[in-house]
C-alpha cells in the first residue's frame, strides 16, 4: 500500500466485517517524539487469543499468507520496515483495537496519504456504522463524529451522492487546515 491511509481503510474493513457498530480511528503525529501512532478500535465480534497470535506471527504469515489473512500482516510489515510495530488487543464478543506505531522521520515510511478520502469512503459505504475520527498533529487536531453530524443535520444516514460531495469537501477542508498548521 502506498499510503498509511489505505492501510487504515483496509484495517477498518476488518472491523466492519466483524459487525462493528462503532469504529474509532485516531492518527497522531508527534514530531518531538518522532512517532506516528494509528489506532483503530471497534466493538465488533473480536478474536480469540490464538487468532491474534497467528495473525502477528511472522512464521505463519510468511509461509502461507492466505491462510491467516493479508491486511494485518501487510500493515505489520510496513510498520516494521520503518522502525515501528503493530499490536492487537482483542476480546471475543467485545471488540478489537489495532495499534500501529511508525517512526515519523524514517526514510521508508509511506506518507500518511489522503486521510480525508479514507474517512469519507468509510462513512459513505457504511451509513449504519458510527465513526469517530481524530487526526492530531503537534497539538492541533481535526475531529469528526458521525453520530454528532447526523444528530446536527437530523438525518439517519450520510451516504447520498449529494451528501457525499459536501462531506468530502468538509473532510478535505479539515485535513488541509491541519496540514497548514
Amino acid at each position, binding site marked *: 500500500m502506498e499510503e498509511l491511509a*489505505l492501510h487504515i481503510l483496509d484495517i477498518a474493513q476488518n472491523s466492519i466485517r466483524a459487525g462493528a457498530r462503532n469504529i474509532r480511528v485516531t492518527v497522531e503525529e508527534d514530531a518531538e517524539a518522532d512517532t506516528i501512532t494509528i489506532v483503530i478500535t471497534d466493538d465488533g465480534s473480536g478474536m480469540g487469543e490464538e487468532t491474534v497470535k497467528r495473525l502477528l506471527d511472522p512464521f505463519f504469515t510468511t509461509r502461507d499468507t492466505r491462510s491467516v489473512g493479508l491486511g494485518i500482516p501487510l500493515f505489520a510489515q510496513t510498520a516494521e520496515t520503518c522502525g515501528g510495530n503493530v499490536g492487537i488487543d482483542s476480546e471475543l464478543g467485545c471488540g478489537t483495537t489495532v495499534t500501529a506505531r511508525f517512526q515519523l522521520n524514517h526514510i521508508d515510511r509511506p506518507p500518511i496519504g489522503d486521510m480525508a478520502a479514507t474517512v*469519507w469512503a468509510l462513512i459513505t459505504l457504511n451509513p449504519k456504522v458510527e465513526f469517530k475520527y481524530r487526526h492530531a498533529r503537534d497539538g492541533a487536531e481535526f475531529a469528526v463524529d458521525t453520530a454528532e453530524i447526523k444528530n446536527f443535520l437530523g438525518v439517519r*444516514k450520510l451516504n447520498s451522492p449529494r*451528501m457525499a460531495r459536501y462531506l468530502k469537501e468538509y473532510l478535505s477542508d479539515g485535513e488541509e487546515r491541519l496540514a497548514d498548521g
Partner: protein
Amino acid sequence: MKLEDLKKAVDGDRGVELEEGDARYTVAVAMGTCGVSAGAREILAALMDELAARDIVDVIVTQTGCMGMCDREPMFEVRAEGAEPVVYGDMTPEKTREVVAEHLAGGTPIEEYTV
C-alpha cells in the same frame, strides 16, 4: 467549511433517506485488501461524484469483500431486482463514470468492461 454548511447538502436532497429495498440499482464496490490497494477508494469517489453530477438519487452504493479475482481489481458489482449481477473489473475512474452514464442512468451494461 463548517458543519453548518453541511445543512445545504440535506436541503431538498431526495436521496438522503433512500432504503436499500427502494433502490433501482445497488452498486457494491469490492473493498478487500486487493481492492483497496488497487484503487477501490478512487473508484468509489468517481462513482459517487458522477451520481451526484447526474442527480441520480435511486442508486445505493455499498461495499463487498474480495470477489475472488484479485488480479481484476478494482471491481464492482451492479445489482438490480430480478437480474443477474453485472461484475465490472479492471476499473478506472473514467470507465466508472462511463458505467454510471450507460448502465446506471441509461440501463444498458457496458459488456466490454465486465468480467
